[in-house]
């Protein structure tokens, strides 16, 4: 009897430690262990890992889609094929030089038809930048710097972190430990309510309150590395912020509302600047195509 109680526990402990699939080992069981023990152990192990698991990459993708859909309900999409292609090429270059070049749904970049100077990193990989921001940057390297900053927010999961812990804990009690992919109608209604609340949390952070100062500074520091690896001039972030600190004075909307004072960001960026410098000839070539692609 003692053996019967202990065996599944021992097997579960082994399973957690080794990350193994005990069900797959059922053909070679030691004496005292039967298939029921194995199933129970596997379920217990899965329950332990699921009970405290973070939001998965695919769940992050669905949160990001909903956040983008909410932003796009306020800011219309700018349909300019040349500009869309250009922003995607610049964005893809910095994203591929990040620590996570692949996300579940991939990176996507689009321009919003708004004069406000702003950019939004939706969880999972969709980055929306306003027409006002495209006009505020002066070179391809500055545009890359803005996009790299947003890619860093995605990789740091800053948007997802805005979801309240209690909301996610409640979601996990519904999601449970079973492997079923479809839910009953009452579970869907509850999960949808939690999903809706989660989107509110992320939306408020992205559009209304902004990220924390530490998150912004981390994103700035990280983006410098992406720019340097890609071959862009990391100093472009500094030049953009310097100009913004002058032109943004007196403005209270858009990025100025949701980002910390640019003077603080500038200090952080200057102290973290990598030593590498971009090729000036290539920089000129990039500036020429920037002027061509952004003349709208």
């Amino acid at each position, binding site marked *: 009897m003692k053996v019967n109680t202990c065996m599944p526990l021992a097997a579960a402990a082994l399973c957690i430690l080794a*990350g193994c699939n005990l069900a*797959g080992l059922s053909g070679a069981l030691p004496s005292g262990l039967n298939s029921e023990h194995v199933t129970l152990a596997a379920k217990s192990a899965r329950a332990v890992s699921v009970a405290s698991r973070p939001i998965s*990459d695919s769940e992050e993708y669905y949160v990001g889609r909903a956040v*983008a859909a909410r932003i*796009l*309900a306020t800011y219309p999409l700018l349909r300019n094929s040349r500009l869309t292609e250009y922003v995607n090429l610049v964005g893809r270059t910095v994203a591929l030089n990040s620590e996570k070049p*692949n996300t*579940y*749904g991939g990176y996507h970049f689009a321009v919003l038809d708004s004069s406000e100077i702003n950019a939004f990193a939706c969880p999972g990989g969709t980055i929306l930048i306003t027409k006002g921001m495209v006009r505020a940057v002066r070179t391809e390297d500055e545009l890359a710097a803005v996009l790299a900053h947003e890619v860093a927010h995605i990789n740091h999961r800053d948007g997802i972190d805005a979801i309240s812990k209690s909301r996610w804990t409640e979601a996990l009690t519904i999601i449970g430990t079973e*492997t079923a992919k479809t839910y009953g109608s009452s579970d869907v209604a509850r999960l949808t309510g939690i999903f809706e609340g989660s989107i509110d949390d992320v939306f408020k952070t992205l559009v209304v309150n902004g990220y924390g100062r530490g998150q912004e500074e981390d994103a700035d520091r990280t983006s410098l590395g992406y720019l340097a690896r890609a071959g862009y001039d990391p100093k472009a972030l500094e030049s953009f912020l310097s100009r913004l600190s002058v032109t943004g004075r007196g403005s209270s909307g858009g990025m100025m509302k949701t980002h910390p004072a640019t003077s603080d960001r500038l200090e952080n960026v200057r102290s973290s600047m990598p030593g590498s410098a971009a090729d000036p000839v290539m920089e000129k070539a990039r500036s020429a195509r920037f002027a061509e692609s952004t003349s709208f």
Partner: protein
Amino acid sequence: MRTISILLILPVFLVCAGLLHAAETVRVITKENAVRQQCKFYSPVRAKVRYNDPLTVLSRSGDWYKVSFRGVSGCIHKSALASGTYRLSGTLGGRGGGASADEVSLAGKGFNPQVEAAYKGRNPGLGYRSVDEIERYQAPDETFQAFLGKGGLTTP
């Protein structure tokens, strides 16, 4: 005595060999991806792969895996992959990708298309059509390669 020892050790050896063999399979953890001719992001595509497709690992080269999929071999970046099995891969030197194997087991759970559909139903004014349009857009690899070259830029 020696015969008994061999009889005891042999099954253990065979089980271990099987487990090590299983660790050489990885799974795709992105919605879609590509096995490419060379280990570069814009290299020509040899095979398209989808979430949870199993790939056999042939070798590793930096952040890239050389894999085989349905008779086609090529490269795929580690950030698109996770360990394909739960069989002791962590303790026996299994080569997981950039994400944990849990990503595979969580497929379709929690916030999934079913929840998204219900959310859309409750909020018909949201811009999901524009989101789909944004996600559909993809600049061709050749355009991307030319863009990098003309701008003096690089990717891993």
